[in-house]
């Protein structure tokens, strides 16, 4: 399959997501072209992780739709990879680094089938790309934060996807790991992959990302970093919350109101 490079990697249309009825993302519209390294930035509770979880189908949508390569998620799952937040799993689980990276092959393997020798080769190859091949047999509870993140990254690479969603891959990692990761992301983007990253550190935004999505429960801006990452937009993203919007959200939850009226 020769993918059309003009089709957007991601299209989000009128997306609203709610937790416990309270909307945490309001009516998001955006389009991301292929081959970009994209940063999602915004304050705590802005809905950054929620956005990618909603796109990955991990959270239910209250309204709107998302498309990847102009197709619904279920038709292109094999081309999409998701890297959860490092802290979202218990690293004391009885597994080795290799076991975790092999999970990246599960989507290709399908249900019931066991990883084959070729899958191990592929996994080892991915570990090499993140500089972790020496750790293949290490128990995961013995890894440092940076090594855990690299392991997760290797698992994502093993999926051989075209779009990667990463939730805070730079959070709490050492300088060497940060450098390894960004180098890796650049190589991936050069070969046409799209990488969408939830990011916290504003200092590195212009250096790391071609494209930014600025978020604070609503979409402030989405576009090439040069034009979008401006003082005004930053002010709007991090400056005062829209108190009225937050109050209305609370009201919806308190009154147990439906997010959208049922269609009659």
């Amino acid at each position, binding site marked *: 399959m020769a993918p059309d490079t003009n089709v957007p990697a991601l299209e989000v249309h009128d997306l609203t997501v709610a937790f416990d009825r309270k909307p945490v993302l309001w009516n998001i519209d955006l389009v991301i072209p292929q081959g970009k390294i994209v940063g999602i930035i915004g304050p705590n509770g802005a809905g950054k992780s929620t956005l990618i979880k909603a796109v990955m189908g991990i959270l239910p949508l209250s309204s709107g739709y998302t498309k990847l390569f102009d197709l619904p998620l279920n038709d292109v799952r094999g081309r999409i990879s998701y890297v959860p937040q490092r802290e979202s799993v*218990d690293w004391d689980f*009885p*597994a*080795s680094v290799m076991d975790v990276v092999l*999970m990246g092959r599960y989507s290709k393997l399908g249900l019931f089938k066991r990883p084959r020798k070729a899958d191990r080769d592929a996994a080892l190859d991915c570990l090499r790309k993140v500089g972790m091949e020496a750790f293949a047999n290490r128990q995961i509870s013995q890894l440092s934060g940076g090594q855990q993140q690299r392991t997760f990254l290797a698992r994502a690479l093993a999926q051989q996807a075209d779009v990667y969603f990463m939730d805070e891959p730079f959070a709490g990692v050492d300088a060497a790991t940060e450098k390894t990761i960004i180098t890796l992301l650049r190589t991936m983007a050069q070969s046409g992959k799209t990488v969408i990253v939830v990011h916290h550190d504003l200092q590195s935004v212009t250096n790391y990302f071609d494209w930014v999505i600025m978020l604070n429960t609503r979409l402030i801006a989405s576009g090439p970093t040069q034009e979008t990452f401006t003082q005004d937009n930053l002010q709007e993203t991090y400056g005062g919350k829209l108190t009225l919007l937050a109050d209305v959200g609370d009201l919806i939850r308190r009154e147990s109101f439906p997010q959208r009226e049922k269609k009659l």
Partner: protein
Amino acid sequence: MNSLAEFFSFADPNIRYVVVGSVLLTASSAIVGTFTFLNKRSLIGDAIAHAVLPGICLGFIVAGTKNPLVLIIGAFITGWLSLIAVDFITRKTRIKEDTAIGLILSVFFGIGILMLTVIQKSGNASQSGLDHFLFGKAAALVGSDLYAFLIVAVILLVVVYILFKEFALMAFDKAYAKSIGYPVRTLELILTSLIVLAVVIGIQAVGVVLMAAILITPAAAARFWTDRIVVMVLLASAFGAFSGLAGAYISFVAPAMPTGPWIVIVISTIAFVSFFLAPKRGVLYRLVRQNNIRQTINNENVLKVMYQLGEENKNFFIPRHLDEIIRRRKYEKRALQSILRRLLHQGYVEQTGNLWSLTEEGKKKAQRVVKIHRLWELYLTTYMKIAPDHVHEDAETIEHLLTPELEAELEKQLGYAKLDPHQTKIPYQHE
């Protein structure tokens, strides 16, 4: 040893039934229980175990006899109902899962006991033995029970074998499993059904109250011994099987002893032993390790004091009296003597009469500790801008901990500095 030979010849069909039944049950419950344990939902098994009682009573009321199939179906239904109720409460209210489990467990069990009492008072002759479900009747297993056990055990094993990779992934990272399109809800449903099935069969042997123990304890014990999930599952089932066998044997040797509780006592003992003796995770291992660390610290501190005294006298090899060392760093005389004897044994000090002196190796070792101490102080003042009078305590720990690689890195980053923040010379090995 006569009873042992008689028992293990399995000539008596009753012994066969009890042994095979107990082993099948404990081994297969342990396998399913491992996944409950890894999903951190250990209490769920307990809730189901208690919730099947009303189902069994209901089955009896409907059938009028103790038809095992009807009872099992009844048990399966209320067991499932309790799970749905827990799930519903956790999702739709502010009540957390542990509270919901406690709530459901007691409500279902209460209703069960109520129904049991009503049945017992009803005068129906065939009701006798229904209370076996409360405490189990492993010693009274018969051939037909065994078939049911065997079928359930085979189902559990086959399903876990087929879906091993899926269950393991879901226990480790459910969001990821969802992201690659796994049918997470269905898989959860299957796993839960397996647990209900294991419980429904298990309570006939060990009873409602002890069921949670044979589900979870083998997994908890196995976790101490391994970091590999496959090994953990196998080990858990081996522990389970052994406790089943041992429980059957004990109740055979001492006929007044009930099998079920003995199974639980044996598996708990295994867990207890694992807790203390397992390598790396066991309490004993950690105590030994801590003791080793304490010894290292004491050794190095005494060497360090002798080195510092040597610095003052510009001669590191002067034999010294204990009091000289104690004057610099407070020790109990006896404790200091035992540390010095240990160092003597290791070849770092020499003894002449009641005087002690460093050997060449002792001086080298002490010098390294002192060097790291002073380098670390310098690192803290230079890179972390900590006041020079606040860095000593921190360096006291770091000096015993640093690996050679970190030591080299520290030297490099500080450019092989000559003086520490207190203007004392930093001793390098080549000098």
